[in-house]
């Protein structure tokens, strides 16, 4: 038996659930579960009226547990937590049951089976609620200062946004100047601004802001503390060290360009260069494209070099870099302008550009320069994934052979003055920084976000955000958007003055722990340390560093660690409730 008083609220979701699940029957069955003191159905549990009714139940019935069976927790978890707060119930004694996405919508063909499953799901929620205990968030006061690592465009734009919001910003840049790759580039799509001008304008704005401090030739060498108050050591000019205290960190360390191996598509031969090298050549050519005193008239672009590789082992770059198709097309237009001016194709006789691609990914606005390139005489040829072009040197001249799928796979030979390898982005070498920040890196080598769509600039390390191409390949506008997004997240965190950390973290049962060190090795966040309790060496969890992933749990040979909210007892009673028989007469759907 239990002395718990739990309220259970089953939502119809305006028919999204009740069209396929007999919600009244679910309520009628589960209201007899041990500990249930109130059970109701609502048309929309999330409505203000329903929430008010639940709040009154919590107060009038002295409820000490709450189960809301409605939609996915991704939608209304925080809604109902806030409701629990308003009612005076500990927010972690509320359990959400997913009756919509994981029941009614998936089992629309059989109301009886969907209803039976709903009963089992709600029973599991009740079983978990019976074992909930009031948990407390850890409130940490925040320092209204932000460290931005990397002074590329994403970092500079994030710093300016934070500064305008009244937060002090420190920018740490590893090189001697700001602007990253953009500083080196000329004309850029869509506004045809020079990259160097974009950086100069941003840099001027940064230098005029009194609450931004910029360190160049600097790097972060030490970090301690956690969200709200990180203490850092910045090494400047290789020798002197400056201490900083900030509330949040934005990592905007940018990317590197893929460097082909010697011989890869002829790389290393005279006349074979990467897209980045070619762009610099075009940018510094005021008129007539030439190299070594010789005019360049025939250019072959080979796309997807170092991108979308498969079966190449650990070093393979299986992802698409997104920006390379668009940049190659735009650079081709710029190259034509240098050689022939802005006139129509007939004014550009003798200048040829051949684009050998796998899939043309000039998405969004980048379709405009692609169509422009087509009109201006660029020739596009499609090669197969397993049939890349071959680059040779014949009679002193570069020759590219490609089987063009547009011509039914027929081989085409092109003699070229220049072969441009359209290379993608690769993660920047940041091993020391990764070690200092304890930030997770994905299998692609870029910093890992919590979720690419739902939480794209947040990491599992509270207070550490990622922006721009440090997170993955992006175009310049996308990098700016990412930088602003990270700035908004940091500001939301710090402007409130405090941050509440979730209490779902690891706990050590010191009576079982024998300090074998397995948990220490399993934790990548430095959240485990050795301590002594009554003369016995045991593990201790540092709450502000623990992320609650639970990687330390299965490796513990003494079963001495649990995650709050996912204890053995809670998981096992949920399993028991999920498998428990449902009597047929309980779920029988009445004939109407």
């Amino acid at each position, binding site marked *: 038996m239990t002395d718990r008083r739990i309220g259970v609220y089953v939502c119809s979701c305006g028919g999204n659930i009740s069209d396929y699940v007999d919600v009244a029957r679910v309520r009628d069955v589960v209201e007899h579960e041990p500990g249930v003191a109130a059970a109701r159905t609502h048309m929309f549990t999330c409505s203000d009226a329903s929430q008010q009714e639940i709040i009154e139940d919590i107060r009038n019935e002295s409820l000490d547990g709450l189960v809301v069976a409605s939609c*996915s927790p*991704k939608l209304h978890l925080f809604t109902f937590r806030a409701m629990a707060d308003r009612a005076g119930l500990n927010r972690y004694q509320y359990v959400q049951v*997913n009756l*919509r*996405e*994981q*029941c*009614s*919508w*998936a*089992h*629309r*063909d*059989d109301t009886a*089976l*969907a209803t*039976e*499953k709903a009963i*089992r*799901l709600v029973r*599991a929620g009740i079983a978990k609620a019976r074992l909930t205990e009031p948990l407390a968030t850890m409130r940490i006061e925040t320092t209204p200062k932000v460290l931005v690592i990397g002074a590329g465009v994403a970092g500079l734009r994030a710093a300016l946004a934070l500064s305008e919001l009244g937060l002090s910003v420190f920018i740490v840049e590893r090189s001697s100047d700001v602007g990253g790759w953009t500083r080196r580039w000329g004309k850029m799509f869509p506004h045809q601004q020079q990259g160097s001008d974009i950086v100069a304008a941003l840099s001027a704005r940064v230098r005029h802001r009194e609450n931004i401090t910029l360190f160049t030739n600097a790097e972060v060498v030490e970090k301690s503390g956690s969200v709200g108050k990180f203490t850092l050591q910045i090494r400047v000019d290789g020798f002197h060290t400056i201490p900083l205290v900030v509330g949040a960190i934005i990592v905007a360390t940018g990317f590197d360009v893929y460097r082909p191996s010697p011989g890869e598509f002829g790389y290393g031969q005279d006349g074979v260069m990467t897209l980045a090298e070619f762009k610099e050549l075009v940018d510094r050519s005021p008129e007539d494209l030439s190299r070594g005193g010789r005019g360049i008239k025939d250019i072959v672009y080979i796309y997807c070099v170092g991108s979308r590789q498969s079966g190449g082992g650990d070093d393979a770059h299986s992802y698409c870099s997104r920006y390379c198709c668009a940049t190659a097309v735009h650079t081709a237009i710029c190259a034509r302008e240098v050689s022939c001016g802005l006139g129509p194709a007939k004014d550009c006789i003798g200048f040829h550009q051949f684009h050998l691609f796998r899939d043309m990914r000039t998405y969004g606005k980048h379709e405009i320069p692609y169509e422009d390139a087509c009109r201006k005489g660029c020739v596009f040829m499609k090669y197969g994934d397993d049939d890349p072009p071959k680059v040779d040197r014949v009679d002193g001249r570069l020759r590219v052979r490609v089987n063009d799928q547009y011509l039914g796979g027929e081989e085409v030979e092109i003699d070229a003055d220049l072969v441009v390898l359209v290379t993608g982005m690769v993660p920047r070498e940041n091993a020391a920084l990764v070690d200092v920040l304890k930030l*997770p*890196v*994905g*299998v692609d080598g870029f910093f*890992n*976000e*919590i*979720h*690419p*769509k*739902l939480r794209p600039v947040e990491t*599992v390390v509270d207070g550490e955000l990622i922006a721009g191409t440090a997170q993955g390949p992006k175009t310049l506008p996308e990098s700016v958007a990412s930088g602003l997004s990270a700035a908004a997240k940091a500001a939301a965190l710090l402007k409130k003055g405090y941050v509440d950390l979730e209490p*779902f973290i690891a706990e050590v049962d010191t009576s079982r722990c024998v300090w074998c060190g397995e948990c220490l090795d*399993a934790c990548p966040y430095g959240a485990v340390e050795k301590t002594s309790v009554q003369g016995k060496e045991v593990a201790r969890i540092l709450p502000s560093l623990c*992320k*609650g*992933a*639970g*990687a*330390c*749990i*299965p490796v513990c040979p003494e*079963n001495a660690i649990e*995650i709050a909210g*996912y204890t*053995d007892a809670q*998981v*096992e009673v*949920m*399993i028991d409730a*999920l*498998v*428990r*028989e*449902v*009597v*047929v*007469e309980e*779920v029988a759907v009445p004939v109407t």
Partner: protein
Amino acid sequence: MSASADAGGGGDPKILVFSTNNISDPGVDLAGGSHMHYSASVVVLPVPCSSGIKPSWILHALEAGFDGVFIAADGSDCAYLADCTTRTGQVVQKAQALLKRHQQDPRRLRMAAICSVCAESFVSHMEGFREALTEIGSG
């Protein structure tokens, strides 16, 4: 009358899925949101990360009456650990050894990475596992 309907999905094997809050549970949600169908005998229990699943939970599920346990792992999308797949694989290895020691068929445990948009993959895995468990039978 008090006949039991414990099979849940109209006689289908009972499958417990361990999903993960950030990655595979949204994938399972998407399957429902896309109105894809899978057996009602499949129930989902979300945890923070698949590397934190205890082998003892898996044994408990099978001994309690589930016919199979499926770990919808974070895979390479894991926000916590770059080597999550390896670690979850080690959990599976330990669990299968535990199942053998308790005379449970290790084929009743499966793992696959399910990303946050892997709705079709999830449904396909559920169908494949349902068929495999039906073949294994209740023994």
